[in-house]
């Protein structure tokens, strides 16, 4: 019998498939990120650690205030609110300092909410946390405070850094 063998078309198909396979492997190899960690238990791009660490910081912590506000910080050490984070009321350092230079004033929210958010009496707060209530439930830690119903700012009478004095 003349003509092509009964399997020649299959060889041709095989060549096409092998060509596709080889091309896919080559492209795949090229596309794998260079720092890939080939360990199924830790299957990740190592450079992702660098990427994740590079995000700029917004909050500096109280130690970042010391550089410029050393005297004020020293005074603070005896105050009731000494352990609080400066930035939770004054705003994050990134909104205040850029490249070791002040570029905007640290804005303080002086509203009553700032005080009440922590110290208004609420049933969900720990029992030994200082709280103030308009009425009822007077105890060792929950104190009655008549002025709570008025619109007066807390800071008119209290020092935000040392409210008990």
């Amino acid at each position, binding site marked *: *019998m003349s*003509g*092509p*063998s*009964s*399997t*020649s*078309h*299959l060889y*041709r*198909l095989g060549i*096409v*498939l092998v060509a596709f396979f080889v091309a*896919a492997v080559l492209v*795949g190899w090229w*596309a*794998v*990120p260079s720092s*890939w960690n080939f360990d*199924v238990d830790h*299957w990740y791009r190592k450079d992702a650690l660098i990427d994740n660490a590079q995000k700029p910081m917004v909050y500096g912590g109280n130690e970042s205030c010391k550089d410029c506000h050393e005297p004020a910080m020293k005074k603070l050490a005896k105050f009731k609110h000494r352990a609080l984070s400066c930035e939770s009321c004054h705003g994050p350092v990134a909104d205040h300092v850029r490249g070791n230079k002040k570029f905007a004033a640290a804005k303080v929210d002086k509203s009553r909410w700032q005080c009440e958010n922590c110290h208004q009496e609420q049933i969900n707060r720990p029992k030994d946390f200082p709280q103030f209530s308009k009425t009822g439930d007077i105890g060792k830690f929950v104190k009655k405070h008549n002025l709570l119903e008025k619109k007066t700012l807390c800071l008119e009478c209290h020092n935000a850094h040392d409210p008990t004095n």
Partner: protein
Amino acid sequence: MELPGDALVNFIFPNNAKVWWSVMIVLYPYLTGLMAGAFVVSALSHVFKIKEFKPIANFALIAAFCFGLFAATPLLVHLGQPQRAYEIYVTPHLTSAMSIFGYFYSGYLVLLMIEIWLIYRPYFTRMANQTKGFMGFIWYLLTLGQLEYNPASAKVDQKIIAVLAGIGIPWASVLHGYVGFVFGSVKAVAWWATALQPFIFLSSAIVSGMAVLFLMYTFIRWRQRQAYDFAMVRKYMAFLWGIFILDYALEVIELAFVVYERGYHWSLIEPLLKGPLFDSYAIMQMGILSVTPLLILGYVVLSNISGRMMIHMANFGSLILLLQVLFMRFNVVVGGQLISKSERGFVDFEWEILAKEGILTAIVLFVAPFVTYYIISRFIPIFDDPAAGKEGS
């Protein structure tokens, strides 16, 4: 509404406000299922030698290929970064149930293509020999340059086709059971986490694939004013009915098991099924959409009804089954996410119409395989034997 976990008010975790897997992820297992189901029909002929299905074996294979081409498109639309989809081939994380899907799915498409190519090779060679110009070149490419088709090679091809169909059955089963595994293995979602999930997905896939194939068959026959093959229809309905009984039994067993177990799962699933999922699950999926086809197909199979009435009833039954499986996909995929991980509340599912993952996109992606089928059917004979040319060979 009854809430789980002694909740007085509906409380959902703040990050649960959105259903992250919506219509696209409903459509993805649906299309994959249509592919797997349609393939089974062709395999019933090629491997299990059910002679009634021989005339529709090629039709089933082409349809399976059309659904297969679009099965992964909903996933692509769903991705937040679709341009990175290639990563699933490049850095597949083998601990993930989803990681090998890329290989499995594309491997299966290649298998389908090779099988179709072998079946249509006699037609390709004849067209390449007859046609000139640009189309002639396309046909020539499709023959891979081998312009002769002799009886010896035909014999070899038939053997390979049977082998491919044989490999294709477990492959299609695993592919779709796999989709069920993707859901069933998520322990954090109580409504998904059952070992029966892969089997339910597989059996419902075969049901939906057979149903859609039958609707396509009757529609094409009706459009082309050709006679229906009643013997085939009866056999087909018997298979469809039988597999649906299996599918429904699995769905009932899954539910019965969770109900009877009265454990952690039921504490969350009970309020879900009595609340947000009551209509679409209890009334529709398990009720109307299951009982109706069970009765109708049972009647078609067991009675000696014939003629137009049989076709009408079989069509109606198939349509309802297609809907049943669609509801099942929705109830699993979206239903599971309605239970907030707070275990004290239910998430609201909001239908989107024009959004990226909305209904409109879903309709386009669902219609696309049928359009593709139409285009393919313009170029190759689907119901005629590809080896029997007009001049005869």
